[in-house]
């Protein structure tokens, strides 16, 4: 029995209910990411052992899916809706305004790790187009701000960058 680090033991306990050849990989990865905010190399190794897979197979899956991250997320993510109804109402301008305000690329985050911008897929709340979601990790906030324009998007991005909480931004 090899000696095991504490963090490895923790991850093992977290995924102990998952079984090989049972279609459990996505569920195990979701569990890890929910707990840690991202999926570390160590976690991929533990999940691989648990599910009798090669670590490379787990890495292959993690890198394949948009939702899984290798790095810790920002404290707050602005999730920009890329859907057609939003794009028909200057969604592209809103994206560019947010990215320029924060000085980041899509799927990047500010240097201090406070605010990130991520690509969002349409969830069918198009009556509110154009929109962004505000996702705050500490409070598990996931709220939509709709009927946006580029100017409002700049204000939201600046407020978050300058330390406002998701709740403060949502209140307007």
């Amino acid at each position, binding site marked *: 029995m090899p000696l095991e680090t504490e963090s490895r033991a923790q991850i093992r306990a977290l995924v102990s209910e998952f079984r090989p050849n049972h279609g459990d990989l996505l569920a195990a990865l979701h569990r890890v990411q929910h707990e840690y905010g991202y999926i570390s190399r160590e976690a991929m190794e533990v999940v691989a052992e648990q599910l009798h897979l090669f670590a490379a197979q787990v890495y292959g899956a993690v890198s394949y899916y948009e939702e899984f991250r290798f790095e810790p997320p920002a404290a707050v993510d602005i999730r920009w809706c890329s859907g057609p109804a939003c*794009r028909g109402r200057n969604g592209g301008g809103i994206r560019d305004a947010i990215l320029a305000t924060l000085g980041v690329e899509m799927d990047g985050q500010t240097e201090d790790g406070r605010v990130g911008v991520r690509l969002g897929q349409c*969830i069918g709340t*198009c009556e509110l187009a154009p929109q962004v979601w505000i996702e705050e990790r500490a409070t598990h906030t996931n709220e939509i701000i709709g009927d946006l324009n580029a100017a409002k998007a*700049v204000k939201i991005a600046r407020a978050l960058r300058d330390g406002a909480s998701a709740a403060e931004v949502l209140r307007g």
Partner: protein
Amino acid sequence: MASPLERYEVLRAEADAVYAAWRTPERPRIDVAIDTSSLANGARETRAAIAALVEQRNDAVDLGQTHGYGMQWCHPLVTVTFTDGASMVYGPVTADQAGLIVDIATGRAPAVSALAIGMLVGERPGIPSLRDHPFFALEPRERRVAKRIGLIDPENIQHAIATGAYHAAARMLDRHQTPEQVRQELIGSALGGRGGGNFPAGTKWNFLATAPGDEHYVICNADEGDPGAWVNRVIMEGDPHLLLEGLLIAAAATGSKGGFIYIRDEYPLAIARMEQAVRDAEAAGFLGDGLMGTALDLELRVIRGAGAYVCGEETGLINSIQDSRGMPRVKPPFPAGSGVFWKPSNVNNVETYANAPLVVEHGSDWYIQYGTERMRGTRLFSFSGDIQRVGFMEIPFGVPLAGVIEACGGMLPGLELKAIQSGGPLGSMLPASEVPNLTMENAPFAALDALMGGGGIVFFSNRVCTIHMAEMFAQFVEEESCGRCTTCHGGNQRQTEIFRRTIAGDGRREDRHNLALVDRTLQFSNCVHGQFSPKIVRNTLRFFSEEYDRHASGRTCDALECEGLIRFRITNQDDPLLAEAQDICPVAAITGTPGNRALNEATCIRCGACTDVAPNAIVREAKPAAPRVLALS
């Protein structure tokens, strides 16, 4: 030993009592619609405000929940049910209108109010039936697949049972129909795959039923990834037990003991409701080992996706379930031969399974009363874009698209319809001039080299640039390509590059020819993702070719969207809002002092924030054509 039907009747009697008490309550009840769209519109705040008021005033009012009815532009939606059983729908009810709603429920305010939309159940003078709302003009008088949506608490299995859920399945399990008869009934109904392909579900089930071995799986594709389509979400959030009953019938009809419901990660509420529905159905005996006292077992599991559009392709979805990257397989073998865990499987869309209980309950003759020769029945559609009324409705196949636009209230004031986008990024884009030729079924779309698709239709107005939209979809399919076929990932990269260059102002005349070349190359891809990815481009080349010419040769974007062909210019130095515009610009492109401000075109990113705050001081306009120097080469 009680038979399945006897067991069902016991459950039904209990459920009837619970639902009757909910339908005709002893105290008035306020139900706030809780679904993804309602939550986005602030339903949680509305519910909290109502709850706080009721508690503070100690009112004799109960609180509950439903799902929205389709009218998403009226969200948050609130239903007040009075002690005589009449239910009235109000919307949009924001948190600051909580007082009015509580007053209406307690009788302190008249039921007729500016927020009243219509009667869901019963009658009240001065308030029309919700069914008479013009948005529902095309719906059958009685909804079918959406019959429970908005009329029950979706998290209450007894509400579903009392309104007929699991009756068709119980009768089938009671040997009123053999599996063969059920599959035959399904073939008779001509129920087609609702994902867009319209492949007969009964035939597909036959493939699985006659496949070798006894380890068969039914798989529900709930990876509804087409932007602008959310009809599967509505079923899962509004009537999860309808889907479960459909899967139960499918499993019994195909000899399957296991099943998966693969839901996209973007639908957390649908995932939660389906997981709870599975637990409740197991507790009631509709799922699990020896279900309903028969020798049948069925274990259904909800799988949460992780953001990969191509997992909506059935073999990609199967791979995603079984511990790997969700890359589509090479077909054949088809899933009925080798599916999940390499065992025979059947993959259908949510709405396809959800229709099965209707066919089994009412028979195929009833089912085909609606629809056309080629496409039977009704289907859910979601409509969005620059229309007055955004939402979902259930309409028979074959109704005219012009009627749909009318039901949606037409375009927003001042805007004209330019294009109809259907079928998602692998679908189509057709011009407004084709509206008279289009009815809501596959054939008229196919005749135009287009695809009606999985239920999402987006209406674009004349403020949208075709090139811009083509770039958006091209980029989508490029990013979502699984990467297996060079034709697909490479072809879609080239396609996207051409559009990006055109948007930057460097469109070339040969682009149209090159796009057609890329199209032909993409046809050699393994799966529909690659094969269908140039479809929108092909549509736009055919129907909007003038716009390509105007971008490439004329250097003009009429919708004023393409960054390289437009500019922003200060037109009024005296406007006090210019100071705000200067402040809001994210790249500090506006400099100078009052009365003497300048907008640096080279820095400007054309996001439009300045015109948002100072619409009368700054103009978005076509960039004057630069003098073109003839190259000597």
